[in-house]
């Protein structure tokens, strides 16, 4: 009895979940695809977004991501080096840093929005701007970037360090000249994961980068991210669903592309490792 019930339930559950997932994906594809064209990507929105495209919104999105990466990457990379290099850290402090990064990863995105609004937009006087939004997203993406980069650095075979140290190289040379390049695919994967997270974010951006659907001219301009555009079209614009779906399709295509690139980077990373050390390849 039980021997057949479990596989039956597992197959049934999978079929149901598959049906639900496909329903949603096909729905988005079905409703979004007719509006998709080169023009949609290269035109400005007209009539509150019912007509036209998303060019200035893509531009704002890229700007916000660029600000987020410019802030999060150096900070994240340096922190990952500090966490992974045993002589740089003190154990108590290291545990504290790790704990606070775990907590940061658990903060709900709307709370990041509250923080970004109160600190960047109001207290620091940046207003609703690309800069406020980008810095808020940088805080959000930081734990992901740090964790992946740290894992990448730690996964490098210890011989690499030992041999380099035996050659009398300085630690800084070993880290910057040898370990970082060796872990590059992992760092790339972490960066891409961070971008994916930032790209999908809406709640933290509404009150930091704002709603203006025109091309930003400086990073103190407000700029509407793609996810915020989807939200606005679907909630606030009667007749905006078509373009909301098309914008959703564009956003999902971007995220799929980034996921594929992440996986490619991760594969490359594993292959590179297994070349250096066969045992590490099976991780």
């Amino acid at each position, binding site marked *: 009895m*039980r021997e057949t*019930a*479990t596989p039956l*339930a*597992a*197959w*049934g*559950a*999978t079929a149901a*979940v*598959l049906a*639900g*997932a*496909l329903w*949603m*994906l096909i*729905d*988005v594809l079905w409703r979004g695809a007719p509006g998709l064209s080169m023009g949609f990507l290269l035109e400005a929105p007209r009539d509150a977004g019912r007509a036209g495209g998303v060019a200035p919104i893509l531009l704002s999105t890229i700007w916000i991501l660029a600000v987020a990466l410019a802030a999060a990457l150096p*900070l*994240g990379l*340096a*922190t990952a*080096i*500090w*966490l992974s*290099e045993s002589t*740089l*850290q003190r154990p108590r*402090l290291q545990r504290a*840093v790790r704990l*606070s*990064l775990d907590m*940061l990863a*658990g*903060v*709900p*995105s*709307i*709370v990041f*929005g*509250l*923080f970004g609004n*109160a600190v960047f937009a109001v207290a620091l006087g940046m207003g609703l701007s690309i800069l406020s939004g980008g810095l808020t997203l940088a805080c959000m993406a*930081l734990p992901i970037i740090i964790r992946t980069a740290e894992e990448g650095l730690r996964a490098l075979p210890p011989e690499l360090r030992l041999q380099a140290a035996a050659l009398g190289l300085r630690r800084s040379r070993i880290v910057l000249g040898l370990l970082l390049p060796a872990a590059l695919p992992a760092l790339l994967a972490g960066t891409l994961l961070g971008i994916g997270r930032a*790209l*999908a974010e*809406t*709640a933290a951006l*509404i009150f930091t980068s704002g709603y203006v659907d025109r091309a930003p001219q400086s990073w103190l301009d407000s700029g509407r991210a793609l*996810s915020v555009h*989807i*939200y606005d079209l679907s*909630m606030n614009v009667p007749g905006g669903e078509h373009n*909301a*779906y098309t914008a*959703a399709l564009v956003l*999902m295509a971007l*995220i*799929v592309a980034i*996921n594929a690139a992440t996986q490619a980077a991760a594969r490359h990373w594993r292959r590179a490792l297994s070349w250096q050390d066969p045992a590490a390849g099976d991780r």
Partner: protein
Amino acid sequence: MFRWNSDRALAAVTGLAARLAAVIVLLIIGFVILQSVPALQELGPVRFFTDDGWYPTGEVAARGYNLAPMVVATVLCAVGALLLAAPLGLLVAVWLTEYAPAALGRPVEALVGLMAGVPSVVYGLWGLVTLVPLIAAWQPPGASLLSGILVLFLMVLPTVILATVAALRAVTPEWRMAAAALGMGPTGALWRVVVPAARGGIRGALVLALARAIGETMAVLMVTGNVVRMPDSLFDPVRTLTANIALELAYAVDLHRSALFVGGLLLAALVAALVLAAERPREARRHA
């Protein structure tokens, strides 16, 4: 004199970065508390649970700041979604690790991975355009606790599946062999040995999913109707703590704004309590 030393410079720079990264979360909590203080001082913490409703604007004497219905809505939405996602997620994970033919398992796992990456605003869009009208045709107005639960369920399900699959795969084959040696069939081994052995990982998956559901804003905001009220049924509209902030921060001033930060604080506390509660038994086991 200070002698330039690249090792020392590296240590200083990375150490500074690490401290800065660690301080961010404190800054966030600190700022949210700081912004909550005016409301907490002026109104006292009790009024956020005893006032006769959420009326943060208008005549001062007639204002109300009760967050309790939103706390309840937040918990109901998240727990409801998890109650659906946990058993279904476990079964799909079991299918993926035990029964899936290779030709079918890989694409399904890829699809689940894809669903995990779909932005929440797209889940919300789908819920708003497809799900809510379906519910409305049955039990108007459609935007309700139920639609919130269903959208959240779809959203956290991939997280539950992927993390549970990882936990099940981490169980070493020796356990299965031992179970077989004791005369257990594959199903018996699965439920009595493999799943219990993966318990820690599965619990982690559920905590992660619950935290995500509690913290979710857009998908819920778009489908729940956003009426501040204690729901009497699954078909009543509700407003979650996250939606409240997203809806009102744009124009809230003074005490109203501060009260929204109190909501944010409550939200952060809810998630922190959850993570700590889940962390504790794991820590205990690790030290045992």
